[in-house]
């Protein structure tokens, strides 16, 4: 074998590259489960609630975001079904009146200003345009956080600065100032 050492070297490079490629996301992102496995499908499915029963725009134009516990307690004061998720939710949060610390997949860095009203009410964009099919999901996937910056991995799945600007250009929004989206 004339080139034996070359093959050994190249396969070493390939293995290291492959392992790095596959392992990098695990090394850089920390995964954690959501505190309660909330199912949008159960709540918004046939005859269920509408999105803005839980996610309203307030009269002052700000977005209420994820509903607080009192909203859930109206129905879940006592168990409505017999699932383990519901029991865990009632025992862990509703009865002791403890707010659920949801992790927001779409959460932007603290210096970003994002108004839902301009997009949903004024521009009439659908939730799916930015959040995908989250409103129909049955279980919650783990939340992934960048270990260094503390940012959500989902920013890179369609809500980076470049994505915001690209859509704004598509909609013919003229040159924006930095402070339009930053605070």
């Amino acid at each position, binding site marked *: 074998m004339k080139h034996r050492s070359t093959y050994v070297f190249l396969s070493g490079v390939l293995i290291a590259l492959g392992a790095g490629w596959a392992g990098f996301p695990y090394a850089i992102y920390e995964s954690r489960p959501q505190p309660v496995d909330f199912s949008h499908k159960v709540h918004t499915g046939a005859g269920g609630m509408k999105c803005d029963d839980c996610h309203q725009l307030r009269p002052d134009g700000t977005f209420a975001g994820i509903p607080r516990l009192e909203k859930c307690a109206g129905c879940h004061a006592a168990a409505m079904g017999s699932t383990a998720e519901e029991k865990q939710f009632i025992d862990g949060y509703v009865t002791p009146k403890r707010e659920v610390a949801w992790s927001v997949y779409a959460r932007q860095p603290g*210096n970003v*200003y994002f108004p839902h009203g301009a997009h949903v009410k004024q521009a009439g964009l659908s939730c799916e345009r930015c959040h995908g099919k989250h409103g129909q999901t049955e279980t919650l996937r783990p939340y992934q956080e960048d270990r260094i910056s503390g940012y959500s991995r989902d920013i890179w799945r369609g809500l980076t600065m470049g994505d915001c600007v690209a859509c704004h250009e598509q909609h013919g929004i003229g040159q924006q100032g*930095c402070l339009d989206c930053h605070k």
Partner: protein
Amino acid sequence: MTGKRYGMSIDIDRCTGCGACMVACAVENNVPPAPEGATDRKGITWMRVFPVDNGRDGPDRKSVFVPMLCQQCGQDAPCVSVCPQQAVQVDPATGIVGQMPERCLGCRYCMAACPYHARYFNWWDPAWPAGMEKTLNPNVAPRMRGVVEKCNFCHGRWHAAKERAVGRGAREIDPADYVPACVEACPTAAIRFGDLNDPRSPVAQAAQQSGSFRLLEKLGTEPKIYYHSAREWVREIGRAPAGKEQVHG
């Protein structure tokens, strides 16, 4: 949206030097209390009230208080032209001179260039006494060590006013919804705010009033803060600093 040109009028004759504007500004904009070891030049005061006198002694001595903040230059703002990072931007929609901490590299060239000394450097990472971080304003992101900051006419309130307009289904904000914190806090209504392009706004009218002047007008930077005093010697200080200056607060 029609172009706005936000400006401010400050009636020096009404200012009592109480400092309410300084406190309201710091609270609104998440400016942390100065850490131990901060000197007069290392603290951060987007709004700062200076006592100024006419330089005489005895019964001839007269003094006034002059609230100082970014003068929001409307023409060739020196901070914009010297910034190697393009971290200072004049928003064409509002005329507000905005500082982008995300982009600032901390060279402080702008601080040297600013004729009004209205820019401040973060010598420390912001820190609040335990518990106080819960009272931070969510509409304003705290800055980090190593960047420059300054007054931006309470830009967080501009965002909030626009959201309120969306809530009402309107395209234009209600001027009553956009009032910077210092204006709101001033107990003698010495500071007023509004769109200089709107001839009916109180600032546009104050700018035209006799006794109205701007600081260092001769530089040609067209500042959008209009001061007012009925006294000639006070108007004189707008042309060149006179007398001894002392720092207040």
